[in-house]
């Protein structure tokens, strides 16, 4: 548990992206995370509206197949993590406990050689945008360090999803929020306030808050404080206004 971990994880993601001459994407998170925690593969699923989610990125073809399987069955660690269970750590999918919990998925996964699976929700309070899944072809738990790494990778994926929806370049979370602003209480409070001002869910409010901070080139926490102290409003009210043009989320990726 140290702040160096966050810096190191972001560096791994951006280095990998740069080698491909691209900006950091969810696929990069998948590939690098699988490598960092010694997983066989990994996948990311993103929610689209209530109760639905689609696999959007995977580290390799086998992981894509497994993501598809879970999606089809609607059962498994991933579905549970998306359902509000927090991180779901299944160190042995062939064990009786796993088969009881996921009677269809567990045998199907082990048949494909997946013996352990770890699912981390991309969540922040009421905001839940997807899930990061890690697969292994052997049983056994993640080490403490691997667990902590996986949680930080899930954070990175969460920010990439939010900023993609806000039309913000992928490097923002890394470069601008080095001070860990996104996890401050004021940011959550401001998102709650904006959700009422804008008549949107708190997730959309958080997307807009980040987009606003980015276009104004200001720290997220400073903007959040302005919202809480009512120096900035997002609904065209007495103070402040939405940034002009191009930054309105369109609600769809790709």
């Amino acid at each position, binding site marked *: *548990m*140290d*702040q*160096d*971990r*966050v810096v190191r994880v972001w560096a791994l993601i951006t280095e990998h992206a740069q080698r491909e001459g691209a900006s950091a994407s969810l696929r990069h998170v998948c590939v690098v995370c699988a490598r960092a925690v010694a997983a066989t593969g990994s996948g990311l699923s993103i929610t689209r509206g209530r109760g639905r989610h689609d696999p959007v990125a995977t580290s390799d073809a086998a992981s894509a197949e497994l993501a598809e399987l879970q999606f089809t069955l609607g059962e498994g660690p991933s579905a549970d993590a998306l359902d509000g269970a*927090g*991180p779901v*750590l299944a*160190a042995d999918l062939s064990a009786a406990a796993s088969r009881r919990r996921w009677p269809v998925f567990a045998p199907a996964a082990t048949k494909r050689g997946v013996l352990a699976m770890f699912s981390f929700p991309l*969540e*922040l*309070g*009421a*905001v839940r945008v997807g899930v990061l899944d890690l697969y292994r072809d052997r049983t056994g*738990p993640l080490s*403490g360090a691997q*667990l*902590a790494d996986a*949680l*930080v990778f899930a*954070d990175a994926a969460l920010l990439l999803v939010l900023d993609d929806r806000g039309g913000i370049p992928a490097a923002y979370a890394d470069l601008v929020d080095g001070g*860990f602003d996104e*996890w*401050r*209480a004021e940011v*959550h*409070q*401001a*998102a*709650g*306030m*904006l*959700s*009422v*001002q804008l008549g949107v*869910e*708190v997730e959309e409010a958080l997307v807009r808050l980040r987009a606003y901070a980015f276009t104004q080139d200001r720290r997220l926490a400073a903007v959040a404080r302005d919202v*809480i102290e009512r120096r900035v409003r997002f609904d065209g009210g007495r103070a402040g206004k939405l940034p002009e043009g191009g930054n309105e989320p369109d609600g769809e990726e790709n």
Partner: protein
Amino acid sequence: MSASADRVRDAFVVLTDTLVADFDVLDFLELLANRCVEVLGVRAAGLLLADHRGRLNLVAASTEQARLLELFELQNQEGPGLDCYHSGRPVHATDLAAAADRWPRFAAAAGAAGFGSVHALPMRLREEVIGGLNLFCGNGSTLETDVVELGQALADLATVGILHERAVRDRDLVLAQLQAALNSRVLLDQAKGVLAEYTGGSVGEAHARLRDHAARTGRSIGDLAAAVVRGSADLAEVVRGAD
């Protein structure tokens, strides 16, 4: 100390009752922070919980005055709470005015908020430190050794409350409980924002309204916060009750 023995006993009875009854982690931690103030005779108490990012997050405090919140936030850079977390040992800053070299920003901010001393007590699980209990005293007052020991017992009780007895034996469950506690706090902050915007009041006031309404209706504050943020709570009802 002996004069308050009844209060101490009462506090532990209430807290352990909460632990075995229908349990909400935020309700429990807020209760514990408030009991710290009553039983230990401190001005303010707050519980910091470390996350996987290496941040110390305030999960519950006896009051949510902005100045106190800032003191907790500041401890991500410096302060007795951070030192306590890193060392795993209690840090007693009995004279903050004289600690300006060690924690220049924290000492100044604490002084401006009217605090003269701080006791930071670790929340430990075996060799791992999961966070800490910070006790703030007014100018010219510090805690006696026996009171500090009692504070440590309350910090240990907070650890048990967060991790549950079952989880203490299983590292995966420890992680799940920590994540759950941290995420409930985020949800509460989002709910405070929703209600503050609805009423036009401050987030601190919104917190008090949520706490009152939860207590009055026998609902956990975590449940209520989730309903408020997800739009399934009647905000007019939450607000009306507080008047």
